[in-house]
């Protein structure tokens, strides 16, 4: 078989079971592709020995007829996941040298299912960013190029998106706090799903904002999202917010039949100054679902405008609390101290050296909004607005809407360094269509459906009802089939 790295999970699974190819062969092909792709900055810790050992074990399992769907599938793992004995830095200098003594629940489940880890993937530091430029490793680069300019793959799961789009791995794990799976998926022409809050265990994933964080699959198509999600989710007693609900067979839900489904088009997402290309992409996607027999209805989500400001209170507040653990005592970096420095200087110097500027900014904003005298004015008000944002969605679903269609991002991928001098708020606006979904705890998926005038991929987002990932995936599957997006970046790396 040729082009083993281009296989989808589904195609690889079927070929492995038939004995047409071995996991060792696919894994070796991915390792070779990774070694020639350093220019993308996607893989930041390569683990070829682990990968080949896991591949051999998977081949033995497949031969013995005991092969779950993910068995023998080579994956990239976002650096935010703790992987036992392997650097897990959250792309931060403060976790330099940290090698966990334990395995995150998600990677543990994937490995138990026979999946192969090729290495750890680049990301924004502590998942705070939308361009992968806040990483201590330097930026990941989008395999899509225009005019020979380096473009961002988006963030924070930028390395995951770049690696999947460039066929360095069959799929990757991502995490999404405000759009960090869906925006990079849209920027690179791949598919990314953020599950319902509580569907996937957060245990062993470096925490950013615990009430918003969810891990999910980043894959080459919707079917692969269904297969990989299946292996990632399920109840975990080690995460108190993990839902004890049965996990449906997501792949079996992909019938493509969406006749009679009601798709909501939220008018508040038609932003002022929205590029014509994005508007057309959205209209085209709406027409595709209508042609497939869905009923299209205009809906209102009146508090949409307040989602980003609420997010930029709640997420930094939770981050300032979560990141208090990086104190130079138990793990990671400790600053060199001057004679006479006490414990406070140790904390202050360690955190100043270890955290990058965006992380410092968010920790301090979070500290401010939680401080005495401002807690009610900022933090409690934001949590009340969050209640209203969720209520908007509850009302839409109660009125009969099955899923909501929106653009995934306000633009195609932008250039590395292009936002360097911009106000931080301008970068935050990247998440304008995705952040509502995290605040309401809903599942959302980004599907590539078109390209802009320069040829760069553009994606649409579908938002589903809580715990209805199966139905959401089926609607996404129909959209994917209708859009027929097959473009791939031209190899330059």
């Amino acid at each position, binding site marked *: 078989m040729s082009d083993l790295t281009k296989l989808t999970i589904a195609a690889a699974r079927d070929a492995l079971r038939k004995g047409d190819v071995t996991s060792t062969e696919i894994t070796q092909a991915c390792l070779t592709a990774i070694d020639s792709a350093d220019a993308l900055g996607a893989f930041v810790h390569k683990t070829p020995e682990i990968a080949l050992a896991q591949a051999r074990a998977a081949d033995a399992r497949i031969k013995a007829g005991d092969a779950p769907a993910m068995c023998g599938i080579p994956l990239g793992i976002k650096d935010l996941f703790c992987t036992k004995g392997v650097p897990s830095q959250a792309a931060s200098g403060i976790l330099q*040298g*940290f*090698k*966990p*003594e334990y395995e995150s629940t998600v990677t543990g489940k994937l490995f138990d299912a026979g999946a192969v880890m090729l290495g750890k993937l680049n990301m924004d530091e502590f998942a705070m960013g939308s361009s992968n430029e806040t990483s201590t490793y330097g930026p990941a680069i989008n395999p899509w190029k225009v005019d020979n300019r380096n473009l961002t793959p988006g963030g924070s799961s930028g390395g995951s998106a770049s690696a999947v789009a460039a066929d360095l791995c069959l799929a990757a794990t991502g995490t999404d706090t405000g759009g960090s799976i869906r925006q990079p998926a849209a920027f690179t022409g791949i598919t990314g799903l953020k599950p*319902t*809050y*509580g569907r996937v265990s957060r245990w062993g994933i470096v925490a950013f904002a615990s*009430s918003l964080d969810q891990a999910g699959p980043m894959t080459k198509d919707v079917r692969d999202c269904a297969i990989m999600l299946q292996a990632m989710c399920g109840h975990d*007693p080690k995460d*108190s*917010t993990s839902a*004890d609900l049965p996990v449906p067979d997501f792949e079996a839900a992909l019938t493509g039949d969406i006749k009679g489904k009601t798709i909501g088009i939220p008018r508040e997402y038609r932003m002022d100054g929205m590029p014509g290309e994005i508007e057309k992409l959205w209209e085209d996607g709406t027409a595709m679902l209508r042609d497939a027999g869905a009923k299209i209805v205009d809906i209102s989500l009146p508090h949409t*405008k*307040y989602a980003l*400001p*609420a997010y*930029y*209170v709640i997420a930094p507040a939770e981050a300032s609390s979560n990141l*208090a653990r990086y104190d130079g*005592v*138990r*793990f*990671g*970096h*400790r600053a060199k101290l001057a004679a006479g420095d*006490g*414990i*406070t*200087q*140790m*904390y*202050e*110097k360690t*955190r*100043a050296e270890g955290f990058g500027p965006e992380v*410092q*900014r968010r*920790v*301090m*904003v979070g*500290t*401010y*909004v939680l*401080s005495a005298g401002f807690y009610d004015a*900022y933090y409690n*008000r*934001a*949590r*009340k607005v*969050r*209640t*209203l944002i969720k209520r908007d969605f509850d009302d839409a679903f109660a009125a009969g809407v099955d899923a909501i269609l929106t653009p995934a991002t306000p633009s195609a991928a932008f250039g590395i360094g292009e936002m360097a001098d911009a*106000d*931080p*708020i301008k970068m*935050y606006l990247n998440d304008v269509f995705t952040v509502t979904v995290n605040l*309401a*705890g809903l599942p959302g998926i980004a599907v590539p459906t078109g390209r802009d005038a320069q040829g760069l991929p553009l994606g649409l987002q579908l938002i589903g009802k*809580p715990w209805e990932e199966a139905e959401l995936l089926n609607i996404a599957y129909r959209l994917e089939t209708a859009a027929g997006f097959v473009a791939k970046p031209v190899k330059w790396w």
Partner: protein
Amino acid sequence: MSIDTETARRVAKLARIAVAEDALPALAAEFNAILGFIEQLNEVDVDGVEPMTSVTPQRLKRRADVVTDGNQQAAVLKNAPDAREGFFAVPKVVE
């Protein structure tokens, strides 16, 4: 609400992040830009609205109050920048 250099210094202190004196005015300006953006929330009528504590209404699971893990001193200390005699070592805390 406007943040001055003094407030920026206090926030940096609370967050335990050393910020050089000459970097404080720029930091204060950044805080002001972000807080200006957040101020939009004041337009929303939140009277009688409960602050969200959990996106999914759920009761946290209970378990028996028993030891489930432990006896891993070496693993716990493995990543410490400075560990001695089975403890984390830090600069002198008390005079």
